[in-house]
């Protein structure tokens, strides 16, 4: 029996109040030839207790990373979301609200999102941030269409955008899907052997609509040369930087070295990995891009009595007003997850976010030290500084390594062969603030054993 319907048992009463005899009367407008006449061929209803039991059984069959020594990241990072965040975000007033169309009864979420915008703005060093988009990849994609809208006219390389060749294929694919309809041409920005951007390639990008790079890059490498990019590409080319926001606790805000748009995966602030979603994408830009930005934005304003109030603003960019001329189709977004991010950031504060970045750096340092001692393992970019993750060269396929180490309860990283055929023997090893010393030990030991076996 379904227990979520308050009017069960009152159907007849309600129907007769309307002068109807049966439910069928309410569906009389459905033409006979499109009617479904049989029961749905689906299972019967379950009770809460049965659903929990099944969920326990099914989800219990998944392997949470916390039950292994896990070094997989590659864009999503294990973190600790403070307990207060979950308890506050599940308050019904937040959880069960929708887009704050009626500002007067939505001040809570509006203010929280306005504050979120301020937190992101400060973090990335740009004056404008929206209240988030779907995820890091669509943020990247929409930053590019946004840049093309802004620079389309003045660009000498019309419709051309340069994207770091390091961008993983899945994200590349999202970017492709979002940009192909706009007649945008995606070209690759090359990297040097040490992993940093090739200045020659950057020079080629001058006059295009945008360059898109990531800092740290998808192999965790920090690239000092990015601080010079804006000067090279010039005023009429958008310099877009994708970030891991935690790194900005320690490393310079891209807005401070010339970035016009900063995007990124917000997940490490406030959200568990959750198999990849819901998470949220960060989108921030300078004023020049503001009116071409996707997504919602909250402004501070006043009410009739001149009290401070908040409301959605710049809505004329959006689909519900501008329809097919909108800057994006974004409607339902990731507000609640962004709210979790805001809560997490507000607890951390300036010192806490630095601390968090240092913990991440320290964990990777410990991993590097441990792997340094393993015969057969080399670092792909040994001279570079890394954050959160590092690519290592193995004596055999990364896929084999991952399979072999499972017996030791170790998930040693991400198989870079999935990104590129050149990299089948490379593993992306990730460490975060949640990495524990004994896990690193287990990694090193298991890796040493496997390498010895492979080499032998």
């Amino acid at each position, binding site marked *: 029996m*379904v227990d979520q319907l*308050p*009017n069960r048992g009152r159907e007849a*009463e309600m129907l007769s109040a309307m002068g109807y005899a049966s439910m069928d009367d*309410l569906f*009389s*407008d*459905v033409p006979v030839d*499109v*009617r*479904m006449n049989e029961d*749905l061929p*689906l299972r019967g*209803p379950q009770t*809460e207790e049965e*659903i929990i039991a099944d969920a*326990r059984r099914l*989800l219990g*069959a*998944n*392997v949470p*990373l916390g039950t292994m020594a896990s070094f997989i990241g*590659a864009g999503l990072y*294990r973190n600790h979301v*403070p307990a207060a965040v979950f308890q*506050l975000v599940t308050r*019904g007033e937040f959880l069960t609200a*929708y*887009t704050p169309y009626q500002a*007067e*009864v*939505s*001040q809570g979420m509006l203010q929280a999102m306005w504050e979120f915008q301020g*937190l992101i703005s400060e973090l990335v060093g740009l004056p404008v941030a929206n209240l988030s988009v779907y995820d890091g990849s669509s943020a990247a994609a929409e930053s590019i269409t946004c840049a093309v809208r802004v620079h389309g006219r003045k660009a000498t390389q019309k419709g051309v955008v340069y994207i770091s060749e390091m961008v993983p294929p899945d994200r590349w694919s*999202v970017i492709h899907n979002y940009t192909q*309809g*706009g007649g945008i041409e995606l070209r690759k920005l090359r990297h040097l052997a040490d992993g940093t951007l090739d200045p020659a390639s950057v020079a080629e990008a001058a006059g295009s609509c945008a360059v898109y790079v990531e800092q740290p890059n998808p192999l965790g490498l*920090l690239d000092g040369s990015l*601080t010079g990019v804006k000067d090279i590409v010039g005023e009429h080319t958008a310099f877009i930087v994708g970030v891991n926001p935690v790194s900005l*606790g320690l*490393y310079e805000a891209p807005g401070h070295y010339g970035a016009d748009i900063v995007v990124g995966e917000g997940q490490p602030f406030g959200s*568990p*990995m959750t*198999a*990849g*979603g*819901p998470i949220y994408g960060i989108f921030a830009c300078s004023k020049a891009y503001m009116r071409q930005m996707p997504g919602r934005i909250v402004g501070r*304003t006043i009410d*009739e009595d001149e009290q401070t109030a908040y409301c959605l603003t710049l809505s004329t960019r959006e689909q519900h007003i501008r329809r097919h001329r909108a800057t994006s*189709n974004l*409607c339902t*977004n*990731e*507000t*609640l997850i962004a709210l979790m991010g805001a809560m997490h950031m507000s607890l*951390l504060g300036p*010192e806490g*976010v*630095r601390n968090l970045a240092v913990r991440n750096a*320290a964990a990777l340092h410990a991993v590097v030290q441990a792997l340094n001692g393993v015969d057969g393992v080399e670092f792909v970019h040994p001279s570079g500084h890394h954050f959160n993750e590092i690519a290592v060269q193995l004596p055999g396929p990364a896929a084999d390594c991952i399979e072999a180490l499972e017996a030791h309860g170790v998930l040693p990283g991400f198989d870079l062969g999935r990104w590129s055929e050149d990299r089948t023997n490379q593993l992306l090893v990730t460490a975060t603030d949640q990495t524990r010393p004994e896990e690193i030990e287990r990694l090193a030991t298991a890796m040493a054993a496997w390498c010895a076996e492979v080499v032998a």
Partner: protein
Amino acid sequence: MNNLWDFTGAKGSGYAQPAPLVPESELTFATSLLRKDAPRWPRLSEPEMVRHYTNLSRRNFGIDTGFYPLGSCTMKHNPRVNEVIAQMPGICDIHPHQPEHHLQGLLAIFHEMQHMLAVCAGMDAVTLQPVAGAQGEFTAVRCIQEYFRERGEAQRTRIVVPDSAHGTNPASAAMAGFEIVEVPSTEDGRIDLQALEAVLDDTIAAMMITNPNTLGLFETDIAAASELVHGVGGQMYYDGANFNAIIGRTSPGLMGFDAVHYNLHKTFSQPHGGGGPGSGPIGVKAHLAPFLPGPVVDVREAEEGERTVELGRWFHWREPEHSIGKVQQWHGNAGAVLRCWAFYRRYGRDLRTMSEHAVLNANYLRHAIHHEAKEAGVDHLFVDGARTDVAKHEFTLSMQPAKEAVGVTAMDIAKGLLDLGYMAPTVYFPLVVPECLMIEPTETEAKDTLDQFAKDFVAVVGTDPATLHAAPVTTPVRRVDEVYAARNLCLRVPEEDL
């Protein structure tokens, strides 16, 4: 109330962290990139943070606090067990790139959802990847685009959208590079077959439409429209935002659609979270299936030694043959899909009953409002947005008569309802109904609530215009000045407040 930057309390962090694994002094950094100034974030202790967000929440309206008849948004009750499940480590603490044998539970749930959604919509294949309805639309349109490219019909560059369509429809199609052809509705708010026929030719890739339409009416000519569009070789796309009205009574498949998106956050109760997250899977007929973004979940016979979650069945990812690639980098909003799975399990095949109750409640409320209005003698102040006997899960009212007679707008009525403790209906959508109020009660509202709302709605309609112009007065702030907001953009904490 305070904003975050008013807090200057906790020196150090409001949230103590364990020591780094290696002391900072032993670390080496990319020195040239080190941050010069810390972000100027506020400093809150946990007590302050908890109180701040508690009080913000108390200035927000949700389904949990009151009736939320926001048309087109399907604000139904969110069963609480779903949140419990969504916090289990078997979903929170898993990575999408873990090996398949680490994710058999997740894959089983995905597979069940793909199947269920296909069955309910009469489609052949489903992907769960899109994370919202609009992304679902975009994904489906991309699939259609590639389908035609593959068939050498690249000339199909136009998509037909009724004038009553939700803004995401044209926006999504435009993002994919299509030209939008808007067709007007008939006077009673339905498809105008003639107008449709007039724009159809072999440049048309698809028609996007929702049924029941945005006026809450069932498109009785839907089969004919499908035939017309198919007749010129186009595809029929079903906007599933209104799917809550029809499950088990009809299906997009039966109506002739080729592709559909689902708003899981609407129909299957993923909480809307003040704007999201959502989940917007799409379903397609077989001919479009090879184009779906990948991976989708498939099942094969289990091999010896494989630890299965269902006897003899091994779930695995599969890349569709001509996949358009990805629209989200991972597997979509898995956590939302999981909640919706739990919701589905609560109903099973009785999803049909759910839809019936959604329609029952909408029609009952519509009748109650008209009845009460007649009793109160204010029935001349509004009219149905479209003439009809039965509505589906929602209905529209036009306040145009009130505007003309006494100068009261739909927005005034909305604000008046806020004062009585209700969320307002959707206002000014669809654009084709002047001074539109769009009301969707959903199936989870009790008859008593509907009766009371009908009374209160009529009372608001009968309230003197001056009072309504001044409404709301009981809310945390009075009527918010959106023009001021746009003229005096303040999108973040001002420098002087740091």
